[in-house]
């Protein structure tokens, strides 16, 4: 079965290794390409030292293009940050925010990206003001729709209305699949148990999530069960996560151009126990989605206190899962060692 959904990796996934210098940029790109994930997404400030305050040397940009060509990869997205709290005690003025976005558009264009990712807290008017410039540079600015926000939230609707009113095709959405969290992730529960949450409370929170109980009721109940500190923190994760419906993406498909394949853990059977990728891929096919799904491993921070994350193995498992769901005939595998 053929389809037009393509596989990619956000190099965010390898952060545990790159932070410690255990994987180079080339290692990340070679590993992703070996898995058949030829779309490469980056957080500019993670992959390129110096960006944005100190700029990036042309040699580093040339090296990026050399690696893209060497491993037959495609630059997909430069995820930018826009630190509008750069100045202590005052927000960055509007015009400076727009100029900052234009600077990231330029950087995205230098890297050959199709998209730049905007964080969800950014004022839609800032993005609208940068849209014509993005269009000139052949870049689309995509706002990341990320839990606890979702496609029915008024803030996202405000963005959608602003995008429609602008009439610009250079503005769109990048949904993060973490918003479809249909079960409490086992790695989260295990972490909360390790930091002292009583088992009875952890079991209750997990079940309450499964039962879709409103977060505020769960928090109160945990307080009344005698929960303090980490137990309250565990209950409060329900404020920031919910099992929204993948089909809510369908109304927005014309403006959805990239997908964050968020995952917290992939088990040995190639299943993400908390995010319903089978349903997600079905919806994306139904919506005739033609972009990349970029792996975004975020289990690292939930296990690093107990074990060294193996980001490459986690990404490999997710890529196997995606290839199966997309109906690909060849199973992704790693034939080479990660570090050259």
């Amino acid at each position, binding site marked *: 079965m053929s389809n037009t959904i393509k596989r990619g990796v956000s190099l965010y996934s390898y952060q545990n290794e*790159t932070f410690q210098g255990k994987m180079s940029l080339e290692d990340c790109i070679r590993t992703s390409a070996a898995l058949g994930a030829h779309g490469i997404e980056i957080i500019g400030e993670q992959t390129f*030292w110096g960006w944005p305050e100190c700029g990036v040397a042309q040699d580093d940009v040339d090296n990026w293009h050399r690696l893209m060509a060497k491993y037959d990869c495609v630059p997909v997205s430069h995820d930018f940050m826009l630190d509008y709290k750069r100045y202590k005690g005052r927000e960055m003025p509007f015009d400076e925010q727009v100029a900052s976005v234009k600077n990231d558009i330029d950087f995205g264009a230098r890297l050959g990206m199709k998209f730049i990712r905007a964080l969800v*807290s950014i004022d839609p008017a800032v993005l609208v003001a940068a849209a014509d410039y993005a269009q000139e540079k052949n870049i689309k600015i995509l706002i990341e729709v990320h839990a606890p926000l979702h496609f029915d939230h008024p803030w996202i609707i405000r963005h959608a209305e602003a995008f429609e009113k602008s009439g610009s095709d250079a503005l769109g959405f990048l949904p993060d699949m973490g918003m479809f969290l249909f079960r409490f992730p086992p790695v989260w529960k295990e972490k909360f148990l390790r930091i002292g949450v009583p088992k009875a409370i952890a079991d209750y929170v997990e079940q309450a999530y499964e039962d879709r109980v409103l977060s505020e009721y769960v928090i109160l109940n945990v307080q009344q069960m005698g929960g303090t500190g980490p137990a309250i923190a565990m209950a409060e994760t329900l404020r920031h996560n919910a099992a929204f419906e993948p089909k809510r993406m369908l109304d927005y498909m014309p403006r959805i151009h990239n997908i964050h394949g968020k995952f917290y853990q992939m088990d040995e059977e190639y299943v993400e126990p908390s995010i319903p990728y089978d349903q997600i891929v079905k919806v994306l096919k139904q919506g005739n989605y033609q972009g990349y799904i970029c792996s975004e491993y975020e289990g690292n921070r939930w296990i690093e206190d107990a074990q060294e994350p193996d980001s490459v193995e986690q990404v490999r498992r997710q890529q196997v899962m995606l290839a199966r769901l997309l109906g690909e005939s060849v199973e992704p595998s790693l034939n080479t060692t990660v570090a050259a």
Partner: protein
Amino acid sequence: MMDNKMIVEGSLQREEGGFSFLGRLPYYRGLGLSMIEDIIVSVDGAAIPREAIRFSVRGQTYTLDEMETVYDNRWNFGEKARIVALNGGLPAGTHAITFAVRMRVSYLPFVPTTKDTKQLALAA
């Protein structure tokens, strides 16, 4: 995030008027220095005053107050900065170093403080 990787093992050394170690930003990206709200250091349970701390990257050294208005330099992702504490010095031996960073992150609805404690040896 990256909590247990903040203090670099084996990096404790003497400085004129104090000691130093290598520290990394507990974050998945780098940050402009103006957004480092505070760096908190203690040694063997004794807090170092804020004004006695220096931050040094790529040959540039700053007080924490100076960093608040530095808009042209960064603490990059995974970059090892030298954290200097001007406490008058440390005796040789093993010391418990605690290192915490408070960051102003535009998109977060809270101001995170992340902390690491490690036992580091200072040679005689």
